[in-house]
């Protein structure tokens, strides 16, 4: 069987499974639709949270980013896992005790205010749409490569599938589908990683192979990688180029953002008990860690394999580089998508891959007869191309396609559900038409989900930046707006309505404005970005990816100051806070 047939089979079989589960577990009431009737076991919930969490950015982009960034890529690894500690310790048990459907609902009751609820809905929608735009690009990349269809067609197919099970199944359907998706995606991620680890080091465990010796050479993989990348003018793999403060801030923004993402928080509303909420966060992180500790190994090995392919001989020797006419099959297929490009600058028909932006390396490169880097590889393709680069069997490649699609779809579905709940439960029922029946509310939720899918699909055609970076912005926004409001609501009794609203707005507007100014997000039509996105013009040297931390600090400061200057919250709110702090209120 050829690769295309195998891919259709793998993707088709996994889709059939998801849709089957969606039908079997479809939502019958609003409780099922929003929080799966609070009947999900902590292990299943942990697995579903992991699938929901690990998006196209984790599955497709992250290892590729790390492959090219080296140590600097650690911000994503620590940032997207460390946030679960915050979530488990600061939010999950209390929100479960509070026991409602949505994040804005908590904000509304804790801050006894409809305005606060509307502000929270706005924050939630901005965050979720920014995030979903990144997911849809991920879906597009996977389909355009593996099903050999146009990006537009791929997106429409993906939107259709998400629509089917998010709209029909609600949270209940999504939760069980996501358990299946976790299994597919983790299998698809680790199988090629194990193969590649075996090939390079002879050790099957990627987490160990990552530091092991390259088979037959007696030199460690990381040592060797450091040597070859520096002799090609790149920065050392195990040390970074980003400034210390920027690494610190990006990591922090991603961690706090993780804990503030509504589609993750709402997961902990679905378990039966407070005790389960604490434990469930641990299971979620455990399942996530399987992929997150494999990814840096995959990244390092992908970088090593790529360089070995292009530079099979000695660096600088006339015949040390790959002849373009002898390039491997994977390079040809990816050239067709335009994500790998070759430009023979020095006319020697060979491929030179090095860092031509390193001015210290220029004279060295010239002495080799190199006139610029000739190969550009889009970092988003590294994980997808990895099995091909390592010459793995076709069924592994097909499996990776199914895994990538599972990752993108599960996250998109989770996000769409949160958006639809915010619209139907918080806006329609909570604010505009409180008298609506449960059936009508369910319908409103489904219509909102359908509408959200259309907008997300549209955003997927032209999102700014790489998948992982777009996603990073959503985290900055979540860190700066929702997390402080929820945390203060639990830990500071004195926090009141005025403080929360002022804080959320300050954090959101500051962070959004900064990102729009330097990167351009939704205002591209009006001429954004306006600022030059270089370290020299950033505030305190903090990049747009890390600015959410400053937004968060502003939020905390404004919220606490305003709270202390205005009247304290009413007596009943103080009691509410007391009661959510203990698992079983006496």
């Amino acid at each position, binding site marked *: 069987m050829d690769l295309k047939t195998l891919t259709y089979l793998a993707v088709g079989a996994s889709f059939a499974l998801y849709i089957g589960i969606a039908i079997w577990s479809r939502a019958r009431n609003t409780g099922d639709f929003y929080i799966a009737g609070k009947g999900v076991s902590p292990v299943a919930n942990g697995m579903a949270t992991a699938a929901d969490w690990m998006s196209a950015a984790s599955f497709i982009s992250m290892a590729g980013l790390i492959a090219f960034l080296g140590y600097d890529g650690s911000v994503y*690894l620590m940032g997207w896992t460390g946030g679960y500690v915050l979530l488990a310790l600061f939010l999950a048990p209390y929100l479960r005790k509070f026991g409602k459907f949505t994040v804005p609902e908590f904000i509304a009751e804790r801050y006894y205010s409809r305005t606060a609820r509307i502000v929270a809905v706005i924050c939630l929608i901005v965050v979720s749409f920014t995030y979903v735009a990144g997911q849809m690009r991920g879906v597009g990349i996977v389909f355009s490569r593996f099903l050999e269809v146009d990006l537009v067609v791929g997106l429409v197919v993906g939107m259709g599938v998400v629509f089917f099970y998010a709209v029909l199944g609600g949270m209940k359907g999504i939760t069980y589908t996501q358990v299946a998706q976790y299994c597919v995606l983790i299998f698809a991620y680790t199988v090629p990683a194990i193969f590649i680890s075996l090939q390079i080091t002879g050790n099957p465990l990627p987490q160990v192979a990552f530091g092991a010796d390259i088979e037959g050479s007696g030199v460690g993989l*990381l040592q060797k990688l450091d040597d070859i990348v520096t002799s090609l003018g790149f920065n050392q793999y195990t040390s970074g180029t980003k400034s210390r403060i920027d690494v610190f801030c990006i990591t922090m923004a991603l961690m706090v953002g993780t804990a503030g993402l509504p589609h993750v928080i709402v997961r902990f509303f679905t378990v039966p008990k407070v005790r389960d909420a604490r434990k469930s966060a641990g299971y979620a992180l455990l399942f996530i*860690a399987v992929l*997150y500790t494999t990814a840096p190994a995959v990244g390092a090995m992908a970088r090593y394999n790529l360089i070995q392919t292009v530079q099979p001989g000695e660096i600088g020797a006339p015949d040390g580089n790959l002849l373009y006419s002898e390039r491997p099959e994977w390079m040809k297929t990816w050239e067709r998508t335009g994500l790998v490009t070759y430009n023979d600058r020095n006319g020697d028909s060979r491929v030179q891959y090095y860092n031509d932006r390193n001015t210290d390396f220029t004279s060295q490169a010239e002495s080799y007869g190199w006139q610029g880097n000739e190969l550009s590889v889009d970092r988003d393709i590294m994980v997808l191309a990895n099995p091909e680069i390592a010459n793995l069997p076709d069924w592994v490649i097909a499996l990776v396609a199914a895994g990538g699609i599972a990752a993108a779809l599960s996250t998109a579905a989770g996000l769409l559900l949160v958006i639809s709940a915010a619209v139907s439960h918080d806006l329609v029922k909570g604010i505009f038409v409180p008298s609506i029946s449960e059936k009508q509310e369910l319908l409103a939720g489904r219509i909102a989900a359908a509408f959200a899918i259309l907008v997300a699909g549209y955003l997927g055609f032209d999102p700014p930046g790489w998948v992982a970076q777009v996603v990073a912005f959503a985290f900055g926004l979540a860190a700066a707006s929702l997390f402080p409001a929820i945390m203060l609501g639990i830990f500071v009794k004195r926090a009141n309505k005025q403080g929360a609203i002022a804080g959320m707005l300050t954090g959101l507007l500051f962070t959004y404005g900064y990102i729009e100014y330097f990167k351009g997000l939704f205002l591209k039509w009006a001429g954004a970005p306006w600022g030059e996105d270089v370290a020299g013009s950033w505030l305190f040297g903090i990049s747009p990816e890390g600015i959410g931390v400053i937004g968060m600090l502003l939020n905390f400061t404004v919220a606490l100051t305003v709270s202390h200057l205005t009247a304290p919250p009413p007596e009943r709110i103080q009691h509410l806070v007391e009661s959510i702090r*203990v698992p079983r*209120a006496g």
Partner: protein
Amino acid sequence: MKPEQRAAYWRANLRILAACMAIWFVVSYGFGILLVEQLNRITIGGFPLGFWFAQQGSIYVFVLLIFFYAWRMNRVDQKYDVHED
């Protein structure tokens, strides 16, 4: 539940929380970012140590921390008789 007891329960929770957060900070921001260069001079299992903390070690510690907190809090819940069922 009496207010004093409630306050004592909350203080116990905050103490455990603070200890966990300190470890959380040290393994990631401490070992993985602020002290990375110093630790990279030590190599263990083929990894420069700071790099290992940034890309592997901190994640393992995070997982353990959450389970530790859940286990510890369950015991505190029992002690103050606020556990579920």
